[in-house]
């Protein structure tokens, strides 16, 4: 187990380093940064000044190592546009994004796991068909559209939930539900197919031959084996929710990291873009690592 954890940690570090390099390279590939920072009305001298003061005249490798060594201790420099430390900008917005992602994932799991189990237990009955129809509808409807419909219905017509902002927990319900919508189809289908496979297995026949209760057969013996792909995909989905919630954040005017990324991309604020990409990537790697660990806890065969 210790070996397994160590191996996974080294892998995670390598992936993070690769992302770091990519984030740095991609921002450099998007044109001459000095020109875009200096602005359209800048003279040649202004541009040269910007280039020197930001260290953009140094060799690329030197710039890279300077950035990496500072990034390693959490110093991502200053934003050109916000006139603030990048780390502060991200830290300030991270809670919104994290809350949103966790609310979204929780709703998704609470809905899709019971639906998937139900569909598997009632395989090929109308219950199963209804569940699959719901999953298909969820996949077919774009998030921003569901968001707007929900705002009109629950926010304006019924007045149950606030339509924008981050003041209270109620603010997270609708955007969380919209994010959950995107994850529910895959999670439901995986739970369903995993449970169908598990319930048809020899060890479930053994469990029944042992006279175990229906509850124990379903939840102790079948679900634990069916959970592995669900855990893996749930972590990927959470990663999507954290990194890809730009649309939902703008629909519901939530100022999270996704919104920050979009703003800084449009303004060519490359220290922020680089840092956001890196932070989200590291979170993503961390989530995958957590999913692997959880799966190893669930299935002893993966601990080797």
């Amino acid at each position, binding site marked *: 187990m210790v070996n397994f954890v160590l191996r996974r940690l080294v892998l995670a570090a390598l992936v993070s380093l690769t992302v770091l390099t990519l984030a740095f390279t991609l921002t450099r590939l998007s044109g001459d940064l000095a020109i875009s920072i200096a602005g359209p009305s800048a003279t040649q001298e202004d541009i040269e000044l910007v280039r020197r003061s930001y260290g953009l005249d140094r060799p690329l490798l030197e710039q890279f190592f300077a950035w990496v060594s500072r990034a390693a201790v959490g110093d991502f420099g200053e934003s050109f546009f916000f006139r603030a430390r990048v780390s502060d900008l991200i830290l300030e917005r991270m809670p919104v994004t994290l809350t949103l992602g966790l609310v979204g994932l929780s709703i998704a799991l609470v809905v899709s796991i019971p639906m998937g189990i139900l569909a598997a237990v009632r395989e090929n009955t109308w219950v199963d068909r209804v569940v699959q129809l719901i999953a298909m509808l969820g996949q077919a409807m774009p998030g921003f559209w569901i968001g707007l419909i929900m705002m009109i219905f629950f926010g304006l017509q019924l007045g149950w939930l606030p339509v924008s902002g981050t003041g209270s927990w109620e603010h997270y319900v609708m955007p969380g539900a919209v994010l959950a919508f995107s994850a529910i189809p895959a999670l439901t289908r995986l739970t369903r197919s995993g449970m169908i496979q598990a319930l048809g*297995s*020899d*060890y479930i*026949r*053994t*469990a*029944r*031959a*042992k*006279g*175990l*209760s*229906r509850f*124990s057969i379903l939840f102790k*013996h079948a679900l*634990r*084996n069916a959970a592995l792909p669900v855990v893996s995909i749930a972590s990927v989905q959470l990663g999507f929710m954290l990194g890809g919630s730009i649309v939902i954040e703008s629909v519901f005017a939530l100022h999270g990291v996704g919104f920050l990324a979009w703003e800084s991309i449009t303004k060519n604020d490359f220290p922020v873009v680089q840092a956001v990409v890196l932070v989200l990537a590291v979170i993503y790697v961390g989530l995958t690592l957590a999913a692997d660990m959880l799966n190893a806890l*669930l*299935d*002893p*065969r993966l601990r080797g």
Partner: protein
Amino acid sequence: MSLLEIRDLHVRFGATAAVRGADIVVERGETHCIVGESGCGKSVTSLAVMGLLAKGAQRRAGRMAFDGIDLQPMSERQLSRLRGDRMAMIFQEPMTSLNPAYTVGSQMAEVRTRHKGGSRRAALERAEELLAKVGITAPGLRLGQFPHQLSGGLRQRVMIAMALMNDPELLIADEPTTALDVTIQAQILRLLAQLQSELGLGLMLITHDLGVVARVATRVSVMYAGQVVESAPTAELFANPQHPYTRGLLDCLPVPGKLPPGSQLGTIPGMVPKLTEDFRGCGFRSRCGFAQPACENEIPLTGDNHLCRCVLAQ
């Protein structure tokens, strides 16, 4: 009262008749072997007794009783109180029959606490004793191991030990050695025979190996095409086979000293018929040298101690 009494059992999967007349009686403390080739319905019969048939299977029987308790009207919940407690089963596939996610100890202990209550610790102690009893060395260590850390032979021993956790009166073993190496097969078989006599189990052993039957069985029932065609005490069946199929089977066995070297073993010509729901009469008639028009009617299983389902035996 017999330990297990099955009369006129029928099982259908859609339009296919898997079992169409199985009569099997297992007495307390005897080893009753069910023999027959693949697809003859012997596994389905055992699964039907345990209530473990796949979804969509239709089962009906004249009588199906365990220790005088009628199994037919029982709900899944009522049946689950008997299974694993008074009647237990082991399977053909030791590699996949244990749950990969739980330790051997956990899987053994739960069947004890489920039926007999008591603490998990007491159940684990019993599990350790039984692992030792089925010939597993370092049983304490095995309790904490997972199935994937054990070989096929060890897993089948674990399955046997697990089946014995609650001192069952009936143990059904569905081809327990088929998936194992030949050397391991003999060990497992010896173990089963030894446990059976030691614990006084009623053992229903399903096999296609007549050698196994000769060594361990008290009584043999031969199944063909979904029916029990002959049932007799072991020595009687081998000495005096009545049904043409049984005779054909025994002719296929190489017997040292009886056959001159170089001569060919017997074979049974033809194929097993396709058993649709409207198939009537003897399933063996298309391959039988004694077939006659009467073979197309339903033929009852007749006889007292040596039962046979054949028009010639009427």
